[in-house]
């Protein structure tokens, strides 16, 4: 068959480019890097397929996650995309709740945006550790129910949950504000040393050991006892 364009055989060509294609391509590249970072973290953390919530382990996992994401140029849409991928499990073969939450928190805490909103309504899974070590100057709004350890180690940021949380909400928080419009589980505010927790719904249980900070229930201070009874 004759090629009627033979004269242009050696002309340097550029492929057809639709702007949307380029955007999608760039997005896919970023999400690919994010997923790769997560899998690397999981590989490091879950060598024996069990991940225990220990203070030192959390710090190590978080530091590792921060190192991994430093070179990735992502935004909040990419974080949401990772949540979708974690929930669907198409690109990610296994979801280990702890490292997944730590990794998501590292992404949220290091995002360019100061205020981040994350919709959780449509996810089948509950995400744990969201808002872990949320720093000062950051506001995270979670729409929908979240898992355990929400706002754990909160470090000056403002975390608002429009829904309920599981156990250990605000555990070990040092500073900042955690507001929950729904219910919380057991050990709310355990080991907290600063900051403030506001719960509008039902509190299943308060943490036994609380070093500082305040817990309000429907506007009433319930911890520390001394301050609330004064």
């Amino acid at each position, binding site marked *: *068959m004759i*090629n*009627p*364009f*033979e*004269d*242009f*055989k050696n*002309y*340097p*060509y*550029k*492929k*057809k480019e639709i702007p949307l294609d380029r955007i999608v391509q760039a997005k896919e590249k970023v999400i690919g890097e994010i997923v790769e970072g997560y899998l690397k973290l999981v590989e490091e953390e879950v060598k024996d397929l069990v991940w225990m919530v220990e203070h030192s382990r959390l710090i190590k996992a978080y530091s590792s996650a921060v190192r991994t994401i430093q070179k990735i140029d992502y935004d909040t849409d990419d974080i949401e995309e990772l949540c979708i991928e974690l929930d669907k499990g198409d690109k990610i073969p296994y979801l280990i709740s702890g490292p997944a939450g730590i990794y998501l928190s590292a992404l949220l805490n290091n995002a360019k945006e100061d205020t981040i909103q994350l919709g959780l309504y449509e996810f089948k899974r509950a995400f744990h550790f969201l808002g872990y070590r949320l720093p000062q100057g950051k506001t995270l709004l979670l729409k929908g129910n979240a898992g355990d350890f929400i706002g754990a180690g909160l470090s000056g940021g403002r975390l608002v949950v429009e829904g309920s949380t599981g156990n250990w909400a605000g555990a070990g928080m040092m500073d900042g504000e955690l507001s929950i419009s729904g219910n919380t589980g057991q050990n709310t505010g355990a080991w907290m040393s600063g900051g403030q927790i506001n719960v509008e719904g039902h509190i299943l249980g308060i943490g036994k050991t609380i070093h500082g900070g305040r817990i309000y229930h429907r506007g009433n201070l319930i911890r520390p006892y001394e301050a609330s009874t004064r």
Partner: protein
Amino acid sequence: MGNTVFEQENDMQKYRENGNFRQKVRTIYQFIQDNLYLNRPDMRVGEEPFNSALLFSLLTALNRGKELIIGEPGLGKTTSAEYVSAMTYRLPLGLIWASEVSGHPEQTEEKIIGRPDLGRLNQGEEVVVWSYLAQLPVKIVDEINRLPETKQSMILDGIDRGNWEYLNDVIINDEYCLFATANYQDRGTNTLIAPLIDRFDVIVESRHPGPDMALMIGMKDRHENVLRSPEYERSFQEILAQRRDHHEKMHLIEDLSTRFGDHMKKEHRIEMLSKDERQEIRACTQELPLDLDANAFLRTVIAELSFCYKYGQKRSDDQCDEGCHYTGFLCHHMKNCISNRFPTSVRTYAQSLAWLLGDEAVGIDHMKAVLPYILAHRVQWKDDVISQKQTSTRRDPLQIFMAKEMVTEVYRRYNEQSHQIKNALAVAYQSASGKDLEPIEGDHPIYLEIKRDLEEVR
């Protein structure tokens, strides 16, 4: 690997000869312009001024073309063709005159092509006596539009292929060029039929030279012409009248032509072209490549002249839809579809022009220079387009003026997106070669034509 010494010497020899031939052709142009066909330059190629009638006649003679020369009576239409023919084909002017055919309503096939040899016919033999027009490589038909339309068909095949048939005999010209002249429409003229007009490669106007040069022409002796040689003319006619095989006669004509050329050089210092030289020039010309811009520009022009979004291609009997997206392109302004003879004419004339100017490839400038003269007679404009343009201030006859405007317009469109068009063609090459690439899209008929090609090729 580099060329061998032998090849390099050959190349050098070729280069020298080519340069000599070019110089010879330019001398012919200059000689005719300064002495025989006085006229004003009316076009420029790059910085160089030319007279279009003379330039295109010369290119027509060199590349075996067909030229239609229009103009007012007495402004040198036939004369320019005669001088160019005599000098490029090394024939005396009187022989050219003798071979000319005039168009008029009573013209017959017997006068134009050939007649039976009556003496031999009486003896029961069917032998054709061929006309000079059919035999000689230079053919001039004067006032072709005075031939009735039915008789124009008689010369179609001869004009197109150089095949001349009469009774059961045929002669085929291996080298020929044709010039036809036409007056503007008056009571005595007919319309040139579309198949005939499409066979002409170019159309030019032989113009009034202006009062000063007209006076110089008027001062010349009408009966003295340096290109005439009654003695040689008789010898040529004797050969043509012989009852011999056509090819044998052509060899004899070439021999005599060589002697005539020597005579002209010796007596008048006029150099003319031999058959070998013409062949060598043609070979060199045909080797000249079209650069990518010229190539893409020509494709763009053809796309506009043949495209129809709704009906697949331009057809004379299809009407354009109101509100068609492509109303801004040429396809919307014309009735007919451009023929396949058009790109052949463009390539040939652009190559000849590039060769004459000593350029190594055909570029956009060559294309822009030749295109109006190749398009003007081939495009049938819609009536409303003609009525918009016919009162415009201009120096050219309407059809050439409109063709020039058309070329400028398409060039502007091409220039705006030349990279994209070339890219589309390059991508199309890769795609047609099997690569998984989407065709490039854009707002010009050429992109859709490329897509259509790819649908066929894939």
